[in-house]
């Protein structure tokens, strides 16, 4: 990625998009609060904000997917009444959604022409589309086979189809919602080159991302959202990652955690040559070998999508190993070979998955029902053949008070807790079991600052009590401040290990991008 040129005289040019007073509620959730936003023509404009800040909602309103409760949208200075995506497309807006909007059983070509078929009978339109597609492919180096079935394509290629869709419709303004979350570093680089080309052609790009590095490298301007409100606009050149993250979370980002030197003891978990495949049979973890000892926190760093999730799920007993051996305190617990999640729990493995909302929570349950998920067999919760709801209620109340879950009502439906509070409940459930081994993914994603500190302290306390912890996080800050040893994963393989004391963001970053550890350190040494 090369450095951006400044935009020059902002304000002199007509903004490509102007949003005024956009307001949107989903039931009781106030997703967008009177938002104003100006995006200059021919620029790349970043939007950052924590999970749930309302970024996707705002852009979906601009694209006509949702309707705002209040506010106006101006495109090229003209008031634009966007009632549906049709109007947005007509106004020259294209969007690549966070969750792709593709028909997987269709070919690339069919996906691209959907909605702009050029006639009631497909044939003529298809031929014209094929030519146009070729032109676009060449112009933006978006190589893709127009007749490939989209479901067979990699995520990166699917994203290209989305971009092609927008360009085919003649988009002058392109919105990309977290496009790099699912990409390999190479694919991400390619994407940014494409965006650069678009900009050179005078098109406007709105880029939503969590990665401040990308903002700093690729955008001209940046806007920050927090809890549904737009809190700041900056020229990228005039801001810093520190300032942005402070704006995002609403206070200074936490500094390094104070903690003692680790006192590792016996090996608790031993992983040898572990291979794991995803549902489509693609090998996502490749020959991973490592071990974790009692009294240490091992962190796994990596760009999301590089196999960490599958590794964590396999160790939690949810996904079978296709090869390799896993031992817990010397006993074989290789997932899929007669050992499942329930068995692992009985043996003292607690698991906080990355996607808690989807995997660790049953939102239709009451809080106390959710609080025994995975532990419903615990004798403490039984009274004869029945569940002892009094005991469960008491236990839940205890979890709630200890982890400051609000409101502290065990009978409230889980769905009625905010995202952060749901997560605290899950953490409480798993950590308060006092397990031998804690597997934890993204422990602080979406929780507020106060809670982050609290959770970090609890994890360190577990370590100090002689437990083993495996931490997966894409936040390098978090990994570096919590872990005692850091393993870096790239493309399914563990490509290296760094002691926390030696780690810094650049080395880890290079390794995460697949650069060999020794080389990474050499590069680092030169700078």
């Amino acid at each position, binding site marked *: 990625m090369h450095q951006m040129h400044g935009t020059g005289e902002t304000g002199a040019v007509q903004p490509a998009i102007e949003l005024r007073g956009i307001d949107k509620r989903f039931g009781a959730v106030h997703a967008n609060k009177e938002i104003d936003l100006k995006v200059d023509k021919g620029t790349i404009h970043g939007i950052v904000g924590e999970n749930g800040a309302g970024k996707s909602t705002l852009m979906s309103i601009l694209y006509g997917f949702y309707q705002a409760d209040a506010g106006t949208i101006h495109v090229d200075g003209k008031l634009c009444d966007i009632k549906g995506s049709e109007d947005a497309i007509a106004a020259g807006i294209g969007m690549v959604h966070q969750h792709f909007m593709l028909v997987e059983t269709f070919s690339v070509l069919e996906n691209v022409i959907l909605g702009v078929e050029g*006639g009631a009978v497909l044939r003529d339109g298809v031929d014209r589309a094929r030519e146009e597609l070729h032109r676009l492919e060449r112009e933006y180096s978006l190589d893709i086979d127009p007749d490939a079935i989209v479901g067979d394509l990699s995520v990166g290629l699917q994203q290209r189809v989305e971009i092609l869709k927008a360009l085919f419709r003649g988009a002058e303004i392109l919105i990309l919602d977290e496009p790099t979350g699912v990409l390999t570093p190479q694919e991400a680089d390619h994407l940014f080159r494409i965006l650069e080309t678009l900009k050179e052609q005078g098109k406007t790009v709105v880029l939503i991302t969590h990665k401040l590095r990308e903002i700093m490298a690729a955008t001209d301007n940046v806007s920050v959202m927090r809890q549904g409100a737009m809190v700041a606009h900056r020229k990228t050149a005039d801001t810093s990652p520190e300032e942005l993250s402070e704006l995002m979370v609403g206070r200074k980002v936490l500094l390094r955690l104070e903690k003692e030197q680790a006192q590792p003891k016996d090996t608790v978990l031993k992983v040898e040559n572990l291979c794991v495949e995803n549902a489509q049979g693609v090998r996502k973890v490749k020959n991973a070998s490592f071990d974790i000892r009692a009294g240490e926190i091992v962190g796994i760093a990596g760009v999301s999508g590089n196999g960490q999730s599958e590794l964590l799920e396999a160790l939690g007993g949810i996904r079978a190993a296709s090869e390799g051996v896993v031992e817990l305190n010397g006993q074989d617990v290789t997932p899929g070979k007669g050992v499942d999640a329930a068995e692992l729990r009985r043996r003292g493995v607690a698991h906080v998955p990355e996607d808690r909302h989807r995997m660790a929570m049953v939102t239709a349950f009451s809080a106390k029902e959710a609080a025994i998920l995975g532990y419903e067999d615990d004798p403490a919760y039984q009274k004869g053949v029945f569940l002892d709801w009094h005991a469960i209620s008491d236990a839940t109340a205890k979890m709630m008070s200890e982890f400051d879950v609000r409101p502290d009502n065990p009978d409230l439906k889980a769905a009625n807790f905010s995202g952060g509070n749901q997560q605290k409940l899950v953490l409480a459930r798993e950590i308060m079991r006092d397990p031998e081994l804690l597997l934890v993914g993204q422990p602080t994603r979406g929780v507020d600052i106060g809670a982050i500190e609290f959770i970090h302290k609890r994890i360190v306390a577990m370590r100090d009590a002689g437990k083993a912890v495996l931490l997966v996080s894409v936040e390098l800050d978090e990994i570096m401040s919590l872990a005692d040893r850091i393993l870096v994963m790239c493309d399914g393989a563990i490509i290296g290990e760094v002691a926390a004391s030696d780690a810094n963001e650049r080395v880890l970053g290079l390794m995460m991008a697949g650069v060999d550890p020794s080389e990474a350190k050499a590069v680092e040494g030169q700078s």
Partner: protein
Amino acid sequence: MENFELVILLLDATLRTSTPLILAALAGMFSERSGTINLALEGMMLGGAFSAAAVAFYMDDPWIGLLAAIATTIGLSLLHGFACITHKGNQVVSGMAINILMSGLTALVGIALFAQGGKTPALDKAARFQPITLPGAEAVKDVPIIGPIYFELLSGHNILVYIAFLAVPAAWWVMYRTRFGLRLRAVGENPGAVDTAGIGVVAMRYRAVICSGVLVGMSGAYLSTAQGASFLQDMTAGKGYIALAAMVFGKWRPFPALAACLLFGFLDAAATRLQGVVLPVIGEVPVQLVQALPYVLTVILLAGFIGRAIPPKALGRPYVKER
């Protein structure tokens, strides 16, 4: 030679028995490819059969009866759509409700109109679809091989039989070669993609169930004004479900569905003729086994033992944007 004749006659009967299945299976396909489960085929067929017979009786014209049948089934489709598309109700429940409702309503209205225990009066010739003799059929009647095939098998069916068989390539063409078909298939796979492409999901799905209504209306009219000569209570006798099975068996595609309908129709025709026949080895053919065969085959297919039937991805799921 005699066997040849028998086979021709059996196939001839197969065409007659599979016609309502073909029309209904195509109807199911249009609805389900757009993401709306249509268990209501049975009830709609019944409603269509009733309207066709009743109106044909009053007007003495099968074509007006057919129109009435189609109007009725479109109405029912819209009701189904209103429950499942507009109000995001459960599609299975809505289908079952329509089936039960029509089973009662046709009889009730029939009694109110004709006081014959839910039947409609027998239709005379003018009020029914009559067999059509294809050009030259009489001429080749006595030519060996060609005669039986052309005269017995291909000629001499009523117009709805020919419409049903022509509807299959037509449906294929619409599904795979037109803008409407592309959008329809897309909305059954990923309504989000259709929505973001600037196409209304709800309108698209309504159009699909209306197509479904048109086809199933013809199927019902065939039962009461072409194959039969009056409506009687529950005369569909599970044909709607067989058509549904054929559609699944045909993996939600027109030509394979046609093949499934012909197979099921053939089984039905054969069961009629195999009755009481003692075959070597097997002994007397249990008619019930032959009758159950379509269902058994469909289950085996669904279990993935012969190929795989993958339904449209969004099938059965209402399109919910804002949770």
